[in-house]
């Protein structure tokens, strides 16, 4: 070996040492910061729920007996209680059923497709099948407006929903994307750079948009906001004390079968606070602001549909059929007191439902106009409330599905 070669190698080792001294601590810091942010800051990045769901898929697939998976958006997460559902089926159809809530925020069909593919792979790996799969079809998550909403979240949600094999497969199609997905999934705890910067811009934009509205609030309305914050803090305190295992309600938990903490889990005092929060949240000013934001983000009244998202929903149905013989489509109740579809909105919804029916041939359970629900069953313009809407919907759904379970062994 010549002296120049050995000298070159010495310098190469020196370079690697200098790189390691800088790069490794920086990567460690990023890992620590994202872990802390993700763990400590609630579910603002939407990742805790996704991770906990994907980590629980094996558990769901391994569960013995009659099983049901209800997969969908935050409407399902907030509006479906598996335990109330199971108890109702038991009392009506005398069948032991274990249902799971697989609802997550922001689940437009492009994400839902990845999730259901992953569930199908998990069931296939275990050689199991689910008895019933309910797929939520949320009309305002398939709109053009929604497709454009918060694009900075896309990469991190996809990274977390994809299995290691799916991530690996992207290497051959797009090595750049593969590298990003690996970094998000394994270095950054699911928190992408885009989500941080995009989230900050989004929050600044929100703050700027809301500042004039906030300035117009009366003293009563400001007091109301403060009261609401206090009630929330008290409820969180109760939950921490009374439910130490399921403290973080949004984290998927086998105890609640993926559902959120229900009223029955709480003491009477905590129940009172929870009911008060729902009531306070229905303040007309808050509801009007929420409706406005839903119109902007999701075109909730006109429902101008994005075809790509519909195709992705149809792909999702195909994936669901891989692990269950009984797949149904469910539309959750709409808060008709606040959300009135325009004539074009109604026509769009009708056309989409017909298309789904034609392409899938599945039963579509549409609770959008169900007479059992009114404005007091929701805590905002779209989500069912913990105290009234969720138990009501879970039991109504269970009664409607009881016949299905009676036919199961």
């Amino acid at each position, binding site marked *: 070996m010549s002296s120049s070669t050995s000298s070159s*190698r010495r*310098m190469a080792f020196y*370079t690697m040492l200098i790189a390691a001294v800088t790069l490794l*601590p920086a990567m460690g810091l990023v890992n620590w910061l994202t872990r802390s942010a993700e763990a400590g800051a609630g579910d603002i990045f939407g990742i805790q729920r996704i991770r906990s769901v994907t980590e629980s898929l094996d558990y769901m697939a391994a569960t013995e007996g009659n099983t049901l998976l209800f997969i969908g958006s935050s409407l399902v997460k907030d509006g479906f209680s598996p335990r109330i559902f199971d108890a109702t089926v038991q009392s009506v159809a005398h069948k032991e059923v274990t249902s799971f809530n697989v609802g997550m925020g922001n689940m437009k069909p492009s994400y839902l497709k990845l999730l259901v593919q992953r569930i199908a792979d998990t069931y296939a790996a275990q050689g199991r099948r689910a008895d019933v799969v309910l797929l939520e079809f949320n009309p305002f998550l398939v709109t053009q407006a929604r497709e454009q909403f918060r694009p900075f979240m896309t990469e991190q949600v996809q990274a977390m929903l994809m299995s290691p094999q799916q991530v690996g497969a992207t290497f051959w199609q797009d090595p*750049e994307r593969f590298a990003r997905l690996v970094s998000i999934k394994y270095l950054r705890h699911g928190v992408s750079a*885009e989500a941080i*910067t995009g989230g900050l811009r989004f929050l600044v934009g929100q703050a*700027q948009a809301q*500042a004039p509205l906030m300035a117009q609030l009366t003293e009563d309305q400001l007091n109301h906001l403060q009261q609401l914050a206090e009630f929330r803090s008290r409820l969180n305190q109760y939950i921490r004390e009374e439910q130490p295992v399921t403290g973080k309600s949004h984290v998927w938990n086998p105890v609640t079968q993926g559902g959120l903490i229900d009223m029955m889990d709480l003491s009477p005092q905590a129940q009172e606070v929870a009911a008060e929060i729902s009531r306070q949240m229905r303040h007309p000013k808050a509801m009007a602001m929420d409706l406005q934001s839903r119109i902007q983000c999701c075109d909730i009244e006109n429902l101008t549909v994005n075809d790509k998202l519909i195709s992705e929903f149809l792909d999702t149905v195909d994936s669901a059929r891989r692990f269950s013989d009984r797949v149904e489509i469910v539309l959750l109740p709409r808060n008709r007191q606040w959300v009135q579809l325009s004539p074009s909105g109604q026509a769009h919804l009708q056309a989409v439902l017909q298309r789904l029916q034609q392409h899938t041939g599945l039963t579509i359970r549409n609770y959008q106009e169900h007479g059992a629900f009114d404005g007091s069953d929701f805590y905002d313009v779209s989500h069912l409330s913990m105290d009234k809407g969720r138990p009501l919907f879970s039991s109504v759904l269970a009664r409607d599905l009881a016949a299905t379970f009676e036919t199961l062994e």
Partner: protein
Amino acid sequence: MLFNTPLFLGFFVLFFLLYCFVFTQPRGRALFLVVASLVFYAGWDYRFVPLLVFSGVVDFFVAQQIEGHTEQRARKRWLLVSIATNLGILGIFKYSNFMIDSVQDTLSFFGMPVSLGTLEVVLPVGISFYTFQSMSYTIDVYRGETRARRNFVPFFATLSFFPQLVAGPILRAKQILPQIERFPQVTPDDVKFGFVLITMGLFKKTIADLLAAPAQTLFNSDAPLSWLETVTGVLAFAGQIYGDFSGYSDIAIGIALLLGIQIPLNFNTPYFALSPVDFWKRWHISLSSWLRDYLYIALGGNRNGRQIRNVFITMLLGGLWHGAAWTFVWWGAYHGTIISLTHLLRRTRLGQWLAGIELSAFRWLQWLFTFYLVCIGWVFFRAESMGDAFAILGALHNPASTIEAQPYAGGVLAMVALVILLIHCIDYGIVHRRELITRRYPRFVPLLILGLTFTILIGEPGYEFIYFQF
């Protein structure tokens, strides 16, 4: 393959290991460098690899012809072949549609509307950089400043040198060819300073991407904005383009240093300039010196009382080099004008009197006025059309505008100003404290770790460097 992506990190680690442990002899290294550079370039668009090779082959051959001829006319003819080839490539790929559109617009302005269609051409990345670099080689050979090379591989390795291939700095053959031919030994100081440059370059790029949002708010807005937001948008773009381009240059120079190749710095705290002339000695130094040496001097420089004309032509073409649009032509003409006015002012008694003032307050005023002039130029540079540029300039000079600013607009402006200052402080350290940084490197490591952490944490890998489009 962007420098600020994990994919490039993977590429570079693999390249570096092979470069240091397998290809240790100059001949093998040069060939390996060529292969790696072509892989890097193909990562952008493999269809344009032959174009890069073609440009290199022509100039390699032409340089030998120039050197082989003693008769001046023949030498000149061969030089013209090189210039025509390189400018021809640029003309076809970069300016053809601009010229067609301009002819159409002119004819239609005179009431003769015609449709000449457009050519289906894609702009090859880095074309403006490598054609200029390649031309400088044949011009240097013509001028007798460097000798024509007989071995194609080292020559082509310099032309396609991947750290600076797609966005400069524009290197001269006489600077880099001797280094690629013998690959000087890397020193520990090279490694340390290289890492400082790479880290700070990535940090600056991240800052630049953050500044993109307020700049876009202004330049992509359909409706007029308030005065405060207009100032913020212009200032943000000034910071964005500086952080973006100087960040890229720093990374390129830093990577080259890790390979033992010395490339001169491309920026020297440009917004600290005290006159437009001073600004161009500090901004994109490799281009401004290229234009000076190969265009301005070729036009006659400041001889025969033609300085003003030559400055103007040089800056006009410099503007056009940046992009095929009238906004860039205006930007070049604008800089040509303010540099010319600076030269004219210096010739007057008033100018000489002003130059003699030693008051620091006057220096601050000079600095502020220069920065203001440069920012006006950025409006032409960034605006989508001349109409937009003039509308923004109108809003910028109308502090009495009745359009109300968004809440917290003052805070955003303060943040933008602070960030630009921060980038300059970093640059100042890099330019003026190299010796201190390498001598006391361990003291700077925590800063580098923080800078890198910030970059990895919020640096969005999808953001391209602005100068790639040129």
